[in-house]
């Protein structure tokens, strides 16, 4: 218009038109004329793979590996990539799963997501995987991911390790850290559960390029976005796997629980729940079936007798009663009470064993004299220091709690029972008055009646005595990875000298009393037997023991269902375990006992 260079606008138009033309021609070449890019696109498919880390291993106190890992495989399906019909029957045959189960599982995957891969069959073993791998190319949309499963170097102690299974939806929802995804494994019971966060490690991710035949073509973007997985931390337990093995041999065909603790540290050396089961039963495709079988077993192998069973502690409780009596000053070591093989107080009668009379405190433990403890109990509850029996009971109860009774003492075992030391209110309700009398609850004097303890608490009580007045939180894990865990010390307000008097009695019980069968050469063993009454049949026998007397190395509770009087089974089993642990082997003269114990059966089904 007003410009000398007006004509140049045509040059500019030409440049624009030419550029557009060149670009469109280029697009035509790329998109229409050649198949090069379409072929490349077909060969281009990204697959996000989760890399599952192996779980941390579990070692025993001597560094022996008890629990490790084995490779396993999961079959995944991406429903929208599944093309038309495929030979389901062949696939099912290779995997050895039911057709119906497979179809159901496939339907579930389809509902979960059409475009995301999810697990259709999990925990495929190596041999099946080898066959599957050959045929996988026929099944578009299916892929395999590598997992690890637990493998065990021992065939017992499943109760300690617990097991690992697929994470449930409710666990995924509850997990605030958003770690879990459907198909992940998680520790469901035992240590697997308690130390899940350490054992699981952290998942990694790998991005792969795959072609339309599902063949991996390399890593996507050169692995730039991959995240490496990290193996879980190993945990070192405090268990002695060799001793554990031996204890299980002794416990063949017997029901019961054994738990042994190192008093100085609170470390659980031995934890036997019999009958146990092979932890390998809870691994792999057969787990559901095996679990059902174990659940139906009349001998309740899934029931952890060391921490889940609670019984009146019987005569083992007398040690604690004597200690409290001494501390309260209601008795002295020389207090003597009459016993005429039994005792009557009005309506209450109590039997006793044949022994000399009267006995002092030490003798009362040695011979487990019942009337002695009834007298002790009466004095505790009728002590002039307290206004009434109720107040005295509350005071007494506070001492028992210091021994870890009536509460869960080991945080590692959330499924453990708390036992029971009833509160004063409990009796208020029972007797409909606050003015109850000592005789109403006289059974407690000898560890019967309302009070309940599990074997772990009995073993811990042994620790308290062995330590002369304290215990360390009982635990079964010493360290995670390289870091050692510190556990709390619990003090008991009873003077040390009183413990020595009770220990005298326990030593005498082994040397010449109710528990002779637990003697070990050149070791001073201290113990106390007990019997838990069983209304359904033979009584359960209980044995509480620690050794040696000075610098105790092991404190233990043994409890044998239907074992009758302690001396028959619990005491000799205790003796053998002590000998094995303290001496390393069983002496010749005990071989016969060992043989008898291993061969005897208390299961009458």
């Amino acid at each position, binding site marked *: *218009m*007003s*410009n*000398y*260079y*007006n004509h*140049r*606008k045509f*040059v*500019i*138009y030409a440049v*624009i*038109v030419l*550029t*557009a033309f*060149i*670009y*469109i021609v*280029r*697009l*035509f070449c*790329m*998109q*229409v004329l*050649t198949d*090069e*890019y*379409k072929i*490349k*696109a*077909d060969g*281009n*498919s*990204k697959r996000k793979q989760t890399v599952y880390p192996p779980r941390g291993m579990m070692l025993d106190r001597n560094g022996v590996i008890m629990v490790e890992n084995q490779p396993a495989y999961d079959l995944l399906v991406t429903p929208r990539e599944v093309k038309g019909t495929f030979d389901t029957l062949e696939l099912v045959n290779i995997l050895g799963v039911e057709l119906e189960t497979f179809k159901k599982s496939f339907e579930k995957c389809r509902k979960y*997501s*059409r*475009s995301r891969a999810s697990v259709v069959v999990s925990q495929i073993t190596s041999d099946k995987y080898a066959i599957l791998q050959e045929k996988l190319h026929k099944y578009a949309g299916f892929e395999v991911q590598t997992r690890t499963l637990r493998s065990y170097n021992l065939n017992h102690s499943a109760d300690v390790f617990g097991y690992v299974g697929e994470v449930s939806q409710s666990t995924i929802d509850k997990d605030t850290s958003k770690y879990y995804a459907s198909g992940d494994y998680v520790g469901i019971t035992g240590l697997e559960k308690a130390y899940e966060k350490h054992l699981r490690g952290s998942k990694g991710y790998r991005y792969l390029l795959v072609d339309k035949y599902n063949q991996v073509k*390399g890593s*996507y*973007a*050169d692995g730039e976005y991959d995240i490496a997985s990290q193996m879980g931390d190993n945990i070192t337990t405090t268990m002695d796997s060799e001793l554990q093995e031996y204890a299980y041999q002794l416990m063949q065909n017997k029901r019961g629980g054994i738990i042994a603790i190192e008093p100085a540290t609170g470390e659980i050396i031995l934890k036997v729940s019999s009958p146990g089961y092979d932890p390998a039963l809870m691994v792999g495709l057969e787990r559901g079936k095996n679990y059902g079988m174990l659940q139906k077993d009349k001998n309740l192998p899934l029931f952890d007798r060391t921490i889940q069973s609670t019984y009146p502690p019987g005569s083992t409780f007398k040690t604690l009663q004597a200690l409290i009596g001494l501390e309260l000053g209601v008795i002295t070591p020389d207090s003597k009470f009459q016993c005429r093989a039994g005792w009557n107080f009005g309506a209450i009668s109590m039997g006793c064993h044949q022994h000399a009379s009267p006995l002092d405190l030490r003798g009362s433990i040695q011979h487990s004299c019942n009337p002695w403890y009834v007298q002790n109990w009466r004095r505790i509850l009728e002590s002039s220091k307290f206004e009434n029996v109720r107040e005295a009971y509350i005071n007494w109860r506070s001492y028992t709690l210091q021994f870890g009774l009536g509460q869960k003492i080991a945080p590692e075992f959330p499924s453990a029972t708390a036992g029971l030391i009833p509160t004063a209110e409990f009796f208020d309700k029972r007797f409909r008055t606050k003015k109850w009398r000592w005789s109403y609850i006289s059974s407690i004097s000898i560890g019967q009646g309302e009070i309940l303890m599990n074997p772990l608490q009995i073993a811990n009580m042994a620790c308290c005595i062995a330590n002369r007045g304290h215990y360390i939180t009982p635990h079964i894990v010493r360290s995670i990875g390289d870091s050692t865990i510190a556990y709390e010390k619990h003090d008991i307000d009873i003077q040390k000298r009183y413990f020595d008097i009770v220990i005298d009695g326990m030593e005498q019980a082994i040397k010449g009393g109710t528990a002779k069968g637990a003697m070990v050469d050149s070791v001073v063993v201290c113990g106390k037997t007990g019997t838990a009454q069983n209304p359904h049949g033979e009584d359960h026998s209980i044995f509480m023991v620690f050794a040696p007397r000075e610098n105790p190395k092991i404190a233990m509770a043994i409890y044998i269902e239907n074992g009758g009087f302690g001396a028959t089974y619990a005491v000799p089993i205790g003796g053998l375990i002590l000998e094995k642990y303290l001496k390393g082997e069983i002496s010749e003269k005990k071989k016969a006992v060992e043989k008898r114990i291993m061969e005897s059966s208390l299961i009458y089904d």
Partner: protein
Amino acid sequence: MLQRGYRQTKLFEHLDWLTVLIYVALIFMGWISIYAAVYDETHSSIFDISQRYGKQLLWMGIAGVIGFVILLMDSKFFTMFAIPLYILMLGVLVLVLKIGTEVNGARAWFDIGSIRIQPAEFAKITTCLAMAKIMGKPGFKITKVIDFFKAVTILAIPALLIILQNDTGSALVYSSFILVMYREGLPQILPILLIATIVIFIFTLMYPATAVLSIIIFGTFVALIYYRQHFYEVFIALAILIALYASVYGVTYFLNMEIESYHILLSSYLVITIGGIIYYLKKHIKKVIPILLLSWMAIGGSYGVSYIFPKLPQHQQDRINLVLGKIDDPKNIGYNVNQSQIAIGSGGLTGKGFLNGTQTKYEFVPEQETDFIFCTVGEEWGFLGSSLVILLMSALIMRIIALAERQRSAFSRIYGLGVAGILFFHLTINIGMTIGLTPVIGIPLPFFSYGGSSLWAFTILIFIFLKLDSNRMQAL
């Protein structure tokens, strides 16, 4: 009141609705592409503000408001405040260097709450206004050295500040003003030299030095024939050159001397050039001497490129080599471009259909909702869809040029051409990189790439021009 109402009617009467229509169509297509690029079956509500397509919808709404407000403003504002706005923006560019947020290595962003603003996008507007102001002054002649430098300075300051932000791509946009300057009378030789430089650059990197030298010599001879219309001279010169080359080559061959053929050719050509200059000087034909000198400039330039290129940072070398097709590595540096070409190329004639792109769905192409948004267009809408986008964009640019050409005021004309140039540069570079024709330079595709800053900047650019255009009858 009456008058105002009248003006308002006038505004919408004189508004170029064709431009607005294309603009709206492009933005709508852009949003569909973003939706497809970030689509995830777990978030399918289009208003989901946590997703980028949801946000883009919001940005689009704001862009509409901005456009409308600009139309309501007085067009004198833009002419009067062109320079103050320009200076203000320079201040902002300095500020972002100091307190900006760094994203992907470029300190080019302001974080305002949850919104992230990129000032470089808006600097284009103020620079364009300032250019229009300076170049539109009566008496301004780009052919005058002083005026030329004024214009270049206006461009260079923001460009340098943006380079300091480590955002070279956005700075390169300012080279698009060469279009305006050309239109306003930049000597023809400058763009030609520019093109020649680019050609020499490419040839030097693509072919052996001797071949490039031969091409230059051949080109010189062709130019001489064109100017002189005298075959005889040139054939003689050519014959002498070949004879010289052959004899020197023969001698060195027999003497077993190791002299590169490049140097033999170079010295032979030097002899011919000197001879030629003497010959023409004697004949008083000065016109052709610049051609001979230019050929030596080209040789020097070519040598310079081969000398400097290996000294460039590796990633820049790689990008250039990749476009030149000298290297082909689908996983490393070429990954983006390779994947983007696969995505576009696999679209076919009609594309795979909305939300059916496998390449974009699986996120093979990085930055697929921003710089590489054209991949989604190419893959899902195929050749027809991508051509339509290019045609619509070109139509918009040409429409803007046509509107610019009908302006009475130089300011409006220059501003309009500036807008067209910026759009053209973005279009050419962005789509060019996705189809492997230009190097990877991180600048957005107008109206398509995700991001508020870029959308708003282009909206403002276009709507200021539409406002100026609607007022074109008033003398400014």
